[in-house]
């Protein structure tokens, strides 16, 4: 696999007890300690009120991290192709549909149905930001972040444009929680660019690897990394937060992981 390069122009983050990228960076460098808590999801003011009422927590999560990353990158979100990647999408919505279909009468809400598509977050992102470039909606189970990063790097390499990557996951309610125990919501967004700019914080050079994925030194963060698919990004985010050069291996598939060389721009 050839090496794919990109500059990180902006990062967005929201997770259990962590409200934005600077807070995450503080925890990932060890400057602050992490205490898990609820993932606080801001109400999306950029959506029309008719749409805002229909949005679930995942739409709020993806809008929050996507807008944080584009703001930090100084990018107009309407102009960026976007890659959304998630293992399970909206688990609450999926549960409600399965429950309705198992009940007499099988009355399904039309809003629930159109929110059930795996690209629902991508659709609401477009409605909220006016973004009309291509958007993608990917899934690779626990390797969804790796799949999304690879897709983003390929799109950037071929199209030579800045792209937005948003990886996100949330809990299922019971009974699905027992068979897929994702403990909380976490979203991460990266604005990636083909050329270095004043906003660039680091250069990434990624290649395929069969080495094992890096783990987090902190036991609690390692538990987070393996329990929420989008958190498989944590070793990469930690390297970005440290602002030092280093190489990390992140999860994708067995035997197909991504080794990423990170070099800070400042």
């Amino acid at each position, binding site marked *: 696999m050839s090496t794919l390069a990109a500059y990180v122009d902006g990062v967005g983050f929201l997770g259990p007890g962590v409200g934005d990228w600077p807070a995450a960076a503080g925890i990932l460098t060890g400057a602050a300690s992490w205490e898990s808590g609820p993932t606080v999801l801001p109400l999306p003011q950029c959506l029309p009120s008719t749409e805002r009422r229909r949005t679930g927590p995942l739409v709020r999560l993806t809008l929050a991290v996507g807008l944080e990353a584009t703001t930090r990158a100084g990018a107009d979100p309407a102009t960026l192709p976007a890659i959304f990647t998630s293992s*399970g999408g909206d688990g609450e919505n999926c549960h409600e*549909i399965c429950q309705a279909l198992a009940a007499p009468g099988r009355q399904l809400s*039309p809003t629930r149905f159109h929110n*059930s598509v795996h690209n629902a977050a991508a659709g609401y992102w477009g409605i909220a930001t006016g973004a009309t470039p291509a958007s993608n909606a990917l899934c690779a189970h626990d390797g969804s972040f790796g799949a999304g990063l690879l897709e983003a790097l390929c799109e950037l390499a071929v199209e030579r444009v800045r792209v937005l990557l948003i990886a996100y996951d949330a809990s299922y309610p019971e*009974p699905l929680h027992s068979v897929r125990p994702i403990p909380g919501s976490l979203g991460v967004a990266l604005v990636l660019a083909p050329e270095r700019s004043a906003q660039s914080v680091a250069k990434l050079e990624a290649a395929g690897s069969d080495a094992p994925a890096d783990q987090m030194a902190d036991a609690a963060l390692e538990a987070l990394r393996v329990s929420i698919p989008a958190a498989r990004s944590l070793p990469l985010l930690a390297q970005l937060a440290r602002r030092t050069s280093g190489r990390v291996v992140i999860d994708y598939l067995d035997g197909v992981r991504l080794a990423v060389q990170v070099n800070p721009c400042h």
Partner: protein
Amino acid sequence: MTPLALTSFTATSAIGRGLDATYASLRALRSALAPCAFETVDLGTCIGEVAGVDAVALPPGLEEFECRNNRLAWLGLTQDDFAAAVEACAARHGRARIGVFLGTSTSGILETELAYRRRDPASGALPAGFRYRGAHNTFSLAAFVQRALRLSGPAVVISSACSSSAKAFASAQRAIEAGVIEAAVVGGVDSLCLTTLYGFHSLQLVSARPCRPFDVSRDGISIGEAAAFALLERRPASLEGDAVLLVGAGESSDAYHMSAPPPDGRGARAAMLRALAAADLVSEDIEYINFHGTGTPSNDEAEGRAVASVLGSEVPGSSTKGATGHTLGAAGALEAVICALALRYGLMPGGVNTTEVDRALPVSYLRENCRRPLSAVMSNSFGFGGSNCSLIFARADRSR
């Protein structure tokens, strides 16, 4: 973009298993839509069900992937020597150099729907033996196909509703062009389930009759199921004249509404224009268009306007969903294969069920088959969330 060869392709839908049966049905203008008798569904609608899916046995050792969607995937993979073509490709490039890019909208959700009827009355737990990863998860399809074909490169599912498997071609093309892989198994598989049957019904988008795309009295979709695959590779040094190439892909987002297109079809228009630009073609080069053509009043109207604004009103087109039903996440790949057959045999398939074309739609809609050598054709796929993708295919012997 650099054209890529479809060195093997296959399709299985309600109109037939494999290419010969599919082509024979297209030639005969046969619709496979029939009144719905699927599972316990009690909706007055017609569907395009693939016969015999539940009798399909998955390869030994892959029992963890048991579900209707993966059974349909395996039924599809075993047609037209497709797996043998992948094996030959693996011998040329190595198993790790072949990616898997597949579209599905609902994967194995049917298993979960059925399991919810058998929850433990006391605890509410799902029945023992429920498999989330192998059946329910959206990635299950690509994981299964990768294992079944013994490939070890990148694998991903694209799930953008009804544009999923068209976009799989675009993602695979980028990965090949970026040098990540040498070849890719692309395609889509979607299978009947209650979520989509009752869901589209709740949106009042389902016809009680077999769907009639572009008809003046069209009143909704008929849901179908399909498995369609293609092996995408860099163009070999020598290629038969009737070989089919992917020459252009264009994607866009509507940024408009979750389940309806903008009436002017501007998102569809943008996708078609980007596909033409990627193919370095002009609108006059497109000789046939396979419409997304779902058969809902607003979808066909928006697409008709978009197509007329990009290709003009003269280019012959049809929707094959009157024959196959709307196969949702598999539609892009199924209709890509139908386009490949159109190029190979010089057959523009007529759109069945449609009896009176809506004169308000500014397109040249084919109701009958039309034979003519074809060199470049377009296929449209549009999905919920405003996700649009247009693909352009051409014959290898096309002269410019």
